């Protein structure tokens, strides 16, 4: 712990503890949004956990935009919560280190429940804080994940890859594996801190996904809670799609190696217990750029074939060739073909058939094709049929699992 926290921080933390509830806010260049997040978290802890010892802990992993100054300015105003501490970690600017520091603080202060709320999640409200923490305090769950009401054009990587693949692998149909906030029980915090994953590459970009996977693979009780609409204020910096795929899909594939024994024995999937009103998928925004995405898919099919031939067998590629001839308005990338593509990419990633960064970046045109198809289907469907579209994607990934299991060496 001393190696993460700067000198003197521990003493300050100990002065605050022990606490019953701790909310950690990992930040990295979130000066524009952190005050809004603190408003929601502070009000939530004050109003919903009155009489209990609580603490909000901002852990900054090396912001250059004055995030900590923004926190101090917020504290100097009339904050709804006094028990707020801000820490700046020394060392490399990695989100995983900030998350680990929050968990270490939770263990150090013997917190019964700990929530993590991203520093860019500006839609957080007092109700969110309560919904993330109550199932932990009541002993219903070790992990609480959010569900959102979102348009089909929001979270397309989650709906088309992350959620269905994780459901097929680990047997629980969670909707938001990387939802920007979650609640953790003391026992899960202790188990996560014992793991050596913090030392590897996963800690750099895959810490969120790893925590959820560890809970699912270990059979820990998981509850989903509906919190409403999600709104983020992303930190400035490069966020091109290929890099997002490297940072999100890469850890997901790497975790398949780590948890191979767990996912190989799972058959089928069930939805986890859900609290609150059901989440809803809304029709996509009309102006989603489907035509450009189909063009990207076609260009990939034309120019990236030598790369894809190293990743996918001819059988998979032959399912893609006819898609390149479809006009943009009729473009459909069926879920079974998409699930096969993702399986082949996972296998190639495991076998290191080409540099992993290249492999994940070369998924971009295929993913854009799938998103164009998904948005087209969602736009053409009635509101009642939208959940069915998600079920079809999930079903396709479950059907593919045998293919994956048979070829994973």
């Amino acid at each position, binding site marked *: 712990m001393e190696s993460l926290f700067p000198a003197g921080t521990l003493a300050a933390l100990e002065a605050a503890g022990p606490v019953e509830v701790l909310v950690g806010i990992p930040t990295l260049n979130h000066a524009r949004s952190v005050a809004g997040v603190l408003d929601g978290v502070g009000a939530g802890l004050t109003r919903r956990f009155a009489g209990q010892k609580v603490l909000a802990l901002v852990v900054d992993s090396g912001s250059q935009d004055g995030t900590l100054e923004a926190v101090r300015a917020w504290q100097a105003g009339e904050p709804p919560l006094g028990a707020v501490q801000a820490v700046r970690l020394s060392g490399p600017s990695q989100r995983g280190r900030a998350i680990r520091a929050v968990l270490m603080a939770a263990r150090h202060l013997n917190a019964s429940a700990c929530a993590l709320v991203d520093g860019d999640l500006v839609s957080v409200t007092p109700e969110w804080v309560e919904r993330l923490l109550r199932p932990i305090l009541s002993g219903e769950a070790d992990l609480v994940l959010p569900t959102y009401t979102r348009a089909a*054009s*929001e*979270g*397309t*990587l*989650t709906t088309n890859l*992350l959620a269905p693949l994780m459901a097929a692998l680990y047997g629980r149909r969670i909707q938001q594996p*990387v939802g920007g906030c979650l609640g953790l029980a003391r026992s899960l915090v202790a188990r996560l801190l014992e793991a050596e994953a913090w030392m590897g590459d996963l800690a750099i970009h895959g810490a969120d996904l790893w925590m959820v996977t560890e809970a699912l693979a270990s059979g820990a009780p998981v509850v989903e809670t509906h919190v409403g609409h999600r709104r*983020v204020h992303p930190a400035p910096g490069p*966020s*091109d*799609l*290929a890099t*997002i795929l490297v940072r*999100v899909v890469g850890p997901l594939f790497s975790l398949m190696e780590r948890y191979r024994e767990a996912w190989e024995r799972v058959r089928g999937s069930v939805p986890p217990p859900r609290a609150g009103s059901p989440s809803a998928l809304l029709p996509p*925004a009309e*102006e*989603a*750029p489907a035509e*450009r995405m189909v*063009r*990207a898919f076609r*260009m*990939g099919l034309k*120019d*990236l074939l*030598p*790369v894809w031939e*190293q990743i996918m067998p001819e059988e998979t590629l032959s399912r893609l060739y006819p898609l390149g001839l479809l006009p943009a308005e009729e473009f459909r990338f069926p879920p079974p073909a998409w699930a096969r593509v993702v399986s082949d990419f996972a296998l190639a990633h495991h*076998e*290191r*058939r*080409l*540099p992993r960064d*290249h492999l994940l*970046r*070369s998924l*971009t*045109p295929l993913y854009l094709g799938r*998103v164009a198809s998904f948005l087209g289907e969602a736009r053409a469907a009635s509101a009642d049929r939208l959940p069915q579209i998600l079920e079809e994607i999930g079903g396709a990934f479950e059907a593919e699992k045998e293919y994956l299991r048979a070829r994973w060496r």
Partner: protein
Amino acid sequence: MRETWTDILANSFRGVVERLALVAPRLLALLALILLGWILAAVLRRLTLRLLAAADLDARCARWGLSAILRRGGIRDAPTALLGRLVFWIVLVMALLTGVEALEIPATAGLAAVIVRFLPNLVVAALVMVAGWLLANFLAQRTLIGAVNAQVAGAPLIAAAVRWLVLVFAGAAALTQLGIAREMVLLAFGIAFGGTVLALALAFGLGGKELAREILESRLRKQEEERDKLTHI
């Protein structure tokens, strides 16, 4: 006159037979050495294959990621087969050199010694070429994927240009190492490299100024539009 003609014929025939008698043992020695070398090479190749298979080299290379590196470089053979072939050719080339020495032809006298002296440079040059070839493939693939993702037209052409640029650079470095026409190689490479860069700069700066601006603007515009309408996580 008739006797003279017969003598000439007999003498020339005798001469050929004498020369053949002188060369034939050496030729036979050459053929025998090649045959023996070939047999020895085949035996050693088989022995190497068995030893490496017993050591489970292919599986180990797969675990260490070496097989993947070879595949990425376009080599589909298993490492065991590759090493077996290497042993075969080394033994065969050594037998050939010994055979050529046995011919005792003035032109090839000391050839084996020269080649052995030259071997370290040859190995370094080969390593430079292998490294260059791996780097060329890596950078070309990286460029291709990046250009396709940015929806730049002619991505394969750009990737091929990158591959050849690196290969030419590696080739020039290897030739310099071998000491073959060092000045000429350096000069030719400098002119070719500088010329290419200048040509590209002129083409992009003069001919494609508007196009470049349009590409950059549309790219930035697209990113902004996409950010507004789509979220991935």
